[in-house]
Each structure stands twice: as structure tokens, then as C-alpha cells.
């Protein structure tokens, strides 16, 4: 009887998940994905099923945390922003895996938002005001507004009276709607998603500036990750729109799918980052801690 039981256990276990191999660790930030624990469970289960490997999501507060985790080998894959992606690293530690497709394109915008009751019409109206950034490693939530200031020959420290980071695009919208900040920079993808799920918040905000389109925050992998795993992950993600289960998950993410795009997709962001690099120190705004 005992033998039969053991056989059953050994027979079932490898079929269910490859417990012998270490789990694939996938880094995410709350910057984009707010506390969607249930969704992440479903997604990791989907990926496990498709890849035959255990997939663990590592949720961190900031892009910086995820980048640190990626560079230290703590994770194999990460969904990061275009801004940290285009940062030159020597040696390079990561590579583009796949790009989410949003409303038919692998692109999105940065929105400069203000409270709907305010009289601000242009970004320059926010001079001397309080501004909410999303994440210091966010393109839409930090790099773009810095670029706007740069275009006007201003620096964040002098342009705004007060700034702060929310480390979450959704909370930037909240900060503006609560009038904690006079203006904020957010990811168009997040703002539009919120407009559906929490219209009470977005209704209190007004978009006064829409950036040119940028490459959507990509999914990258750590150089040195097993090629097979990388390919498996890329195939799995890019084929999510081909099955019902995957479509359901994509619908929850409000994405059309994942696709293969060249690195040049992020040239716009790269150009802004390079320009900023020349005009001033990158993290001048960040606290010393």
C-alpha cells in the first residue's frame, strides 16, 4: 500500500510542475500593476501550465528595486519601463524580450494631468506649483516632464515649488484628484485603465499635455538566462492572444498581446534620456537615502 502511494506521488509531481528545476522569477513593479494579487496568481498559473515550469512573480515598489533585482540575478525576467531599459550599462545586463501591444500598437504616451477645477492649461502654468512624479525610473512619469522642463530651460528643483514621487501611476492620478499635487505625469495606459475601473478619480483630472508616442514598457530578460527558458517565455507571452485563457488574461491587462519589436522602438526615449544626461544630473531630485 505504502509503495503504491509513493508511486502515485512520484508519477503526479513531475507532471504537475517541474519541481526539480528552480522556478522562473519574474519581476514586476507596483508602478504599473497595482495590487492585483489574484490576477498575478492566475497569470503565473497560466505561464506554469504553458511552460511546464513554476513561475514566481516578484513585486517591488520601484523600477529601481526591480532593476537591482535583475542585475543581481534575483530574477530572470522583468517588466520594466522604457527609461531604465535605454540606460547604458557596462556591461549590458539585460536584453529586450517582447513588447506589450496596447490598442494595436506597442506604444503609449505620457499624460500631464491637473485637477479638473484648476485653471492650468499648459505645462508652463505649473511653474511654482506642486508636481507629482510616478517613479524616478519612469519614462512617462518622470523623464517626459523633465524633458518638458529642459525644453523650457528649467530644472525640476527650480521649476516646481515642491515635488514628490508616488511610485505608482494610479496614485499620481489620486494625488492630482485629491489636490495634494497641482499636476502630475502619468502613463496613458494606466490613466485610460483607471478611466474604466475608477472613473471617480480620473474624472477629477484633466489632461493638459499628451506626449509623443513612446515604446511601451517592455519585458526584458537577464543576460545569462537559459536560452531555452528565454525562448519559451517569449513564445508563451507572444502566443497568449491565441488561446481563450490567454485572451482573458490580456483583457484583464487591457492589452492586445505581446509582440516582437526591434530595440529602435525605444529610440524616442533614448533620445530624451541622452538629452537629459547632457543637461543635468539624472537623479538630482532623488533623496540621498
Amino acid at each position, binding site marked *: 500500500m505504502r509503495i503504491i502511494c509513493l508511486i502515485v506521488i512520484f508519477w503526479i509531481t513531475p507532471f504537475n510542475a517541474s519541481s526539480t528545476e528552480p522556478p522562473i522569477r519574474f519581476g514586476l513593479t507596483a508602478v504599473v500593476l497595482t495590487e492585483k494579487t489574484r490576477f498575478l496568481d492566475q497569470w503565473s498559473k497560466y505561464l506554469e501550465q504553458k511552460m511546464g515550469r513554476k513561475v514566481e512573480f516578484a513585486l517591488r515598489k520601484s523600477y529601481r528595486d526591480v532593476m537591482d533585482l535583475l542585475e543581481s540575478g534575483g530574477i530572470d525576467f522583468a517588466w520594466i519601463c522604457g527609461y531604465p531599459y535605454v540606460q547604458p550599462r557596462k556591461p549590458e545586463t539585460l536584453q529586450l524580450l517582447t513588447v506589450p501591444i496596447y490598442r494595436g500598437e506597442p506604444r503609449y504616451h505620457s499624460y500631464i494631468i491637473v*485637477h479638473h477645477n484648476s485653471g492650468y492649461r499648459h505645462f508652463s502654468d505649473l511653474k511654482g506649483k*506642486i508636481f*507629482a512624479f510616478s517613479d524616478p525610473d519612469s519614462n512617462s512619469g518622470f523623464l517626459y516632464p523633465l524633458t518638458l522642463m529642459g525644453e523650457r530651460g528649467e530644472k525640476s528643483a527650480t521649476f516646481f*515649488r*515642491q515635488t*514628490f*514621487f*508616488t*511610485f505608482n501611476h494610479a*496614485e499620481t492620478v489620486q*494625488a492630482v484628484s*485629491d*489636490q*495634494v499635487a*497641482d499636476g502630475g505625469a502619468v502613463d496613458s495606459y494606466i490613466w485610460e485603465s483607471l478611466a474604466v475601473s475608477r472613473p471617480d478619480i480620473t474624472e477629477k483630472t484633466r489632461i493638459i499635455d499628451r506626449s509623443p508616442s513612446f515604446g511601451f514598457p517592455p519585458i526584458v530578460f537577464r543576460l545569462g538566462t537559459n536560452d531555452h527558458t528565454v525562448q519559451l517565455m517569449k513564445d508563451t507571452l507572444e502566443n497568449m492572444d491565441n488561446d481563450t485563457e490567454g485572451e482573458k488574461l490580456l483583457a484583464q491587462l487591457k492589452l492586445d498581446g505581446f509582440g516582437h519589436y526591434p530595440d529602435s522602438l525605444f529610440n524616442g526615449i533614448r533620445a530624451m534620456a541622452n538629452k537629459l544626461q547632457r543637461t543635468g544630473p539624472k537623479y538630482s531630485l532623488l*533623496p540621498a*537615502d
Partner: protein
Amino acid sequence: MPILSPRSWPLAIKLSLTITAVVTAVGFMIGVVMVLQDWSRFHDELGEKALLLAESVAITAPKAMRRKDHWSLYLSLKNMASRRPGTKGTHEVVTAMILDPEGKIQAHLNPAENPMGLLFSPGNDIEQNFLEQAMEARTPIALSSGGFSKAGFLEGVVPLFSDQKYMGVVRVRLSVAQLYEKARNSAFIVLSLILLFVFIGSALGTIVSRRMVKPLTAVTQGLEAVGRGEMTDFSPVPIRDRDEIGRLSVTFNQIMAELAEKKMLEEEAAMSEKLVALGRITAGVAHEVNNPLAGLLNCIDTLRKHPDDKKLIDRYLPVIDNGLHRIKDIVHNLLVGLKIEESDDTVSIEHIDNLRELIVAEVGDRHIDIIWNNTSDKDLNVPGKLEQIVCNLLKNAVEILPDNGKIIFSMYQDGPYLNIDVSDNGPGISPNIKNQLFDPFFTTKPNGTGLGLWVVYRLVQSMGGVIGVESEENQGSTFHVAVPVVTTKAA
């Protein structure tokens, strides 16, 4: 208005009102103390709650302030304010803020009006005072707006320290509105209970006081009956208890019984007095009539024996005539004195004045001065009985006076009374016979019947008047009569 003067209210009402007032006052005092204690307890609890909330924010605030993470500071305030501590959600965060040592806003629950980075500006002097207290605080304190008001608040003030360096302050202000509602509700309940208590207490008080006062009411009614002279239909006060009121009732019943007995004895005594008086009159009549009768019978006997003796006839006939007239006078006066009727006959003042002539005739050749003073209204009508009174008094004076005597007659009105004074300068009345002056058959004159003054006394009494006499031996006497004026105008 007796209803407006509490002194005239029945004892039962006064007692029950007193009990009600005492019950109300005690109940109200207890209620006020309970409500105040409740309020103070709730108040202290709310103060502690405000401090706890401020402390919950203060735990993470210094770190966020060092990082200039204003968003976290704001979120900590917002989360604290939206916290629902179980079902005991009896607080409402009115406002909350985090200030740096200079008083600049690091986070405020109402960011639209209190932008971060600017100095917090209090709206008025009171707020300025609170701000100063908060900025000076180096240990957690609870500030109170004080007073029992719906708009009041309690503020938890917790200073922030990072490595013993002062970083600023967290202020969390809770509204007492819900507390106020709670206190008001409990006050309402307490008040309702007091009202119920008062109602029951008053009802019981009324019943008890009525029960207590009932015997007193019976005693009072009995005494009122005594005052009216009704003692016959007195029914004893029932005795329920042996307390003071019970003892009073017993004593009252005894007094009433004794009074009734005394009255009966008095009535009996009055009756026997009447009989005595009647006996005296009867004896007087018998004696006065019998005396002349013996002489008369002797005269008649003698005349019968000597029918032809002219001398005897001439001598005895006047004696018989005198004796019979004396008997006639006695009977007449007795009839007048005993048969005094309530007659409404009136005579004019003129009739009284006419009596002067009668007296002058009575005086005859004797030398007696008569001084007549009548100042009363000439149109006045007086009772007919007055004529007899004046006549008797004047006749008495004439009879008693020696030659060269003087009679003064005065008649005058004094208010509702007509006064008559008859004075003489005769021998006066000895003090030892003054009391018998108006008794029937009492006389000092050799031929008097002793009924003249008795008749005067009876007439004055029947008219509701008074009679008195002043006299000094060998100086004279004055009789005063005062009778009510019956009619003032001549018909």
C-alpha cells in the same frame, strides 16, 4: 384669588407638590451628574483616541519626512482618517496635518486649501493659540476646544523625533459631534427616566399625603362646625394610625365630646335660670298683688259692716281706689314687660319732644328744672317703643328728685345709633344695688312697683340696643341708651 396664594392651598396639595419638587430636584441633580460624568468619560476616551491616531501616523512620519516622501505622509493621514475602527466608529477626523519645525505643511488632510511646503496659517486667534501649543509640544498631548458644543473637537498632538532631533508635529483633530449626539441622547434618556420617576413619585406622594392629611381635614371640618355652633351632627374622626395625627384625632374627638356635653349642660342651666326668673316674677306678682288685696278686703269688710257710715265710705273708698290702681299698674307693666312684640311701629321725633310737656305736667308745682337738648334730625322716624323708654326714665327722675332738682335730657345721633342720655342731680344710686337696678319688682321708692326700669331694659334689648347707668351717691345719675336708627327719613 386664593388659587394664586399658595398659603391658602390645601395641605394635601402642598405636601404632594413638595414631594414632587424634592423628587424632581434630586432626580435632576443625579441626571446632570450622570450626563456630565458620561460626557467627561467620552471626552477623555475621544482625547485618547485622537492621540492614538496621531501616534499611528507619527510612527512612520519621521522616516517619510527624511525622504521627503510627502505622498506617503499624505497617505498615512488619509488612511488614518478613513479608518473605521470596528463598529465603534464614534469619531470623525475633522482635520489632520503634519508640520515641520518651522510650521510648514508636510501633509494635510485638506491639501487643496493647505498646500504642502507652505506655512500653516491658522484662520483665527483661537486656531493660532492651538497651533502654538502644538508647536511647543515636546510630548504627546491632547488639546480640547472645551465646552459642551457640537462644533467642539479634541486634538491629538504628537511631536516627531528622529534620532532625538525634533522633526515636527502630527496634529489629528476629532469632532465631538458624534460624542455630542451621544451625550444628548443619554441626556434625553436620563431626562425621560427622571420624568417617569417624578410622575411615579408625585403620584405616590399625592396618595400618601392625601392619606396623611385626611384626618386633619376631618378635624378642620369639625372645628369649623364648632365655630358655626353646630356640634350635634359631629361624627368622630376615624383613627387609623397612632402617630401625631392619630393622637391629634383622638384628642379632637375627646374635646368635641366634652364640648357637646358642656353645651347640653349650658342649655339645661339656661332653662333652669328661666324657670328661676319665672318663679321670681310669679313670687313678686303674688307678693305685690297680695299686699294691697289684704287691705282692700279689710276695707270692703268694714264697709259691708257699716254700709251707712258715710265717714267710713269717704275714708275707705280712696284707699280701695288706690289699691286697685296699684294692682292695675302692676299688671299693665307686667304685660308691657312680658309681651314685648316685634313691632315695626315708628313715631316721629316730634312725639319724643312732646313728652317734655307731659313731664312738665308731672312736675306740677315742684321746682324742678328741665333742660331739653334734642340735636337729632327732625325728619327722623324712631321706633314707637322709644317713647315708653324716654317716658319711664324721665318719670323716674322726676319721682326721685327733691325740690330745686334738675333734669337734663339729651338726644343725638352717633353713626347708626340714636343716643339718649337722661341725667338728674338726685341722690344717686348706691353701688350695692346697681346690679339689681333692672330686676323686676326691685324698687327703692315706697310706692314703686319695681317694674319701670325692668320694662325699659326689656324694650332696649328688644330693639337691639344697649343701656347703661353712671351714678354717684348724692351727685346724681345718668342713664345712657343707644338704639339703632331704624329709619332716617320721614315718610
